[in-house]
Each structure stands twice: as structure tokens, then as C-alpha cells.
């Protein structure tokens, strides 16, 4: 009986040593996001780190987009947090694109945007239901049109 206990204890300790989990770093997320963006050319990355909140807190970035370019926005969530990120692209007050389509309830890890006007645009990131989260957004260039 004592031997079984010792064996079990030894097994638990051993599995504790071998089954090690690693937290995902921002660089890891950028790499994963790069894979999601596939063959598009990397332009910028954005790190989103938000606490829980109601209404859901928002992190905002501005970018210049150029006419005649197809851009790709990719998002990647850290598995260490509950939050699933939503990206929304705005031009002043107009919602132009999003990774979460409310009507279908569908999430997209990446979306493309055919830009027809050079200017400043705003990226709004938040986590669904205001859960805490860590995510990376990637802006890349797909092609010129």
C-alpha cells in the first residue's frame, strides 16, 4: 500500500515536472497572427491588453490607409486569457469593417479591406462581453488594385 502511495506521489511529481505550460508572449502572438495573415506583407502590429469591464473597455489606434491598396487585418488571442478580441475599423464615425459580424454571429480571424480613400482611419479593439484579454492585431498589405 505504502509502495503504491509512493509510486503515485512520484508519478504526480514527475508529471508536474514534465507537463509545463508556457504563457504566450506578444512575439508568439505576432508570429501566429503572421501565419493567419498568410502571404500578405507585414506593415504594423498592435498589442491589445484590456481588463474586464462593463461596458467593455476599448483600445484605439490610428493608421493611415492608402487608396488602391487591399489591406488585411488579422487578430490573434492569447490562450492565457478568456477574452476574444473584436476589431472594428472606423473612418470618423462610420463603421467600415469588423472581424465580428453581429448579424451572423460569425468571428473572422482576418478580414480584407479594399481602400479607396487615403486618410486616417481608427482601429477599435475590445474583448467580447468585456472579458479580460490579451491579443495582437496585424495590419498587412495584400496587393495593389
Amino acid at each position, binding site marked *: 500500500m505504502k509502495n503504491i502511495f509512493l509510486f503515485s506521489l512520484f508519478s504526480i511529481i514527475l508529471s508536474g515536472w514534465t507537463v509545463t505550460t508556457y504563457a504566450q508572449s506578444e512575439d508568439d502572438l505576432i508570429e501566429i497572427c503572421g501565419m493567419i495573415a498568410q502571404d500578405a506583407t*507585414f506593415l504594423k*502590429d498592435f498589442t491589445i491588453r484590456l481588463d474586464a469591464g462593463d461596458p467593455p473597455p476599448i483600445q484605439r489606434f490610428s*493608421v*493611415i490607409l492608402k*487608396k488602391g491598396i487591399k489591406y488585411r487585418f488579422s487578430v490573434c488571442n492569447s490562450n492565457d486569457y478568456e477574452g476574444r478580441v473584436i476589431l472594428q475599423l472606423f*473612418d470618423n464615425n462610420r463603421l467600415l469593417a469588423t472581424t465580428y459580424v453581429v448579424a451572423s454571429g460569425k468571428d473572422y480571424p482576418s478580414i*480584407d479591406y*479594399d481602400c*479607396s*480613400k487615403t486618410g486616417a482611419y481608427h482601429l477599435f479593439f475590445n474583448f467580447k462581453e468585456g472579458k479580460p484579454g490579451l491579443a495582437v492585431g496585424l495590419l498587412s498589405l495584400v496587393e495593389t488594385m
Partner: protein
Amino acid sequence: MYRNVILLIATVLLATSCRFFDSNRNLSREDFDIPEGLLDEKPLEVASEVIDDMIQNVSSPVEMAAIIKGLKIPFNRDYIANTKDMNNLNTSFQKAVGLGIYGADLGYINMYERTSLVINHITTIKSLADGIQVGQFFDFNSLSRIATNRENIDSLLLISQQSFNRIDSYLRETNRAHLSVVIIAGVWIEGLYIASRVAEDAKHPRIDETIGEQKVIMSSLMLLLNNYKGDPNVSKLISDFEEIQALYKDVRITYEYGDPIPVEKDGVLTFKQNDTQTIIMSDETLNNIIKKVQSVRNKLLIG
């Protein structure tokens, strides 16, 4: 009696108050009791979040190069800066400008996959980056390896872009944001310089439009630069750029707005923007902008 007294008091008060506003008397700080903390000569500071926001607003050189390549305009080595000009750049300010100019050229070279030119350019960039103590963020070894072995060109673009993003972040973290802004100014002027050379040679309306569009970007850039106008070098750069900005006053941009259209194809969701922009610019204005941009850029490389 009372009336006369009131009139006398009013006259005296009026006379003393007028003396206070006497324009012939030079009022100095000593005439006022100003708290010490307000007497600093520091420039008006814009919050770092606002700076971050504005920096993100100045586009990367890759997009300009992609537009040029997309129009099937061939690569031209004459458009990029000669790496020998690096020897003219001695101060931190000049090195930062150079870092931006050669960085933009690297974007152009990378886009056209001219790996034979990459080594020379990244060696120059590394040297300039070391000169302002940010060389550690420029991944010289990876870039050299990729260029020498003609490995994946996407990696070349990725590492170049990431290196510049890290340099930018570090300069801002170490309170040298003015150098970061100067690098951005260098990237911007070189991108516009390349476009101006292409416009002269290729005479393509899309390139003319790209030059006209820079009016929008230039206003953000000038806002950024003006935050550091207390620095004499930045102030000189602002004067040069203001000459370009003055020419852009004759460029008019109009917009028509339409709702974006989402299209899902093969699982890829694409939003097609439905806005239209129109650039109204005379040939004379375009030529004046081209000449001025080339003159300002060439002057920056003289040091």
C-alpha cells in the same frame, strides 16, 4: 459736490489703469508674480498617447513602393540615396534623418526583391542606428543572412519593418521622441522623393494622385514636428517642410461617401470601400511640388 468727487475718482482710476496698458512701456516677467514652475522654456508638450497616435498616422514606405511596383514601373537604382552620402551625416539629428531616408529606400529595394543592394543599405542603416544608440534593435544578422541567401523576401520585409518599429518604440521610451519623429520625417520625404522621380519618368496619373494625397499625411507630420520646434535642427527642418506645405495649399481634395460592401468569398470576408476621392491639382503645382521635394531631400543628404 458728490458728483465732482465721483468724477475725480473715476478720472484717477482711468489714468492709472491706462498707464498699466501703456504700449510704450515694455512689460517683462519681473513685472508679474509668476510661479517658478511656469517659467521653464520647455516647448508645449503633447501627451505621449497623442504622439503615439500621430506616429501611427504616418504611413510606411512599403505602401508607396507597392503602389509604384503595382503600376509595373521598373526598379530604378537612381531613385535611391547613395550610401556614400552617409559620410555627410554626423550629428544625431542628421543620422536620424538618414535612418529614415535609407529605411524608406530599403522598403523600395525589398519590394522589388533587389537583394544585391540590400547588404549595402542595411550596413548603412546599422551604422546610422548605432550612431544614435539604437543599433541593437536593428536585426542586422538576420537581414544579412536572408539577403545573402536570397531567402524568403517576406521575412526581409517583416524584419525590416519590425526593426524600425522597435527603434521607434525605444526612442520614445527613452525620451528621445524627437529623433523618432525626425526618422519618420526622413521616411516620408524619401517616399515622396521616389514618387516624384517616378512621376517625372513615368508620367502616370496614379503617381500624380499619390503625390497630391500627401497633403493629408503632411498635416499630421507637421503637427508632430511642431511639437519639437524648440530644437534648432527640427525648427530648420520645419522651415524646409513649410515650403513644401505652402505648395500643397493649391491642392484640393474632395470626397464622396458611400457605404462599404462586405463580400465573402472562399471564406475570406472583404469589405470594399465605396468612397471616392478626387485630387484637384494643376500640372504647375505638381511640378513645383516635385522640384521642392527633390531640393529639400537632396539638401538633407548633404548634412
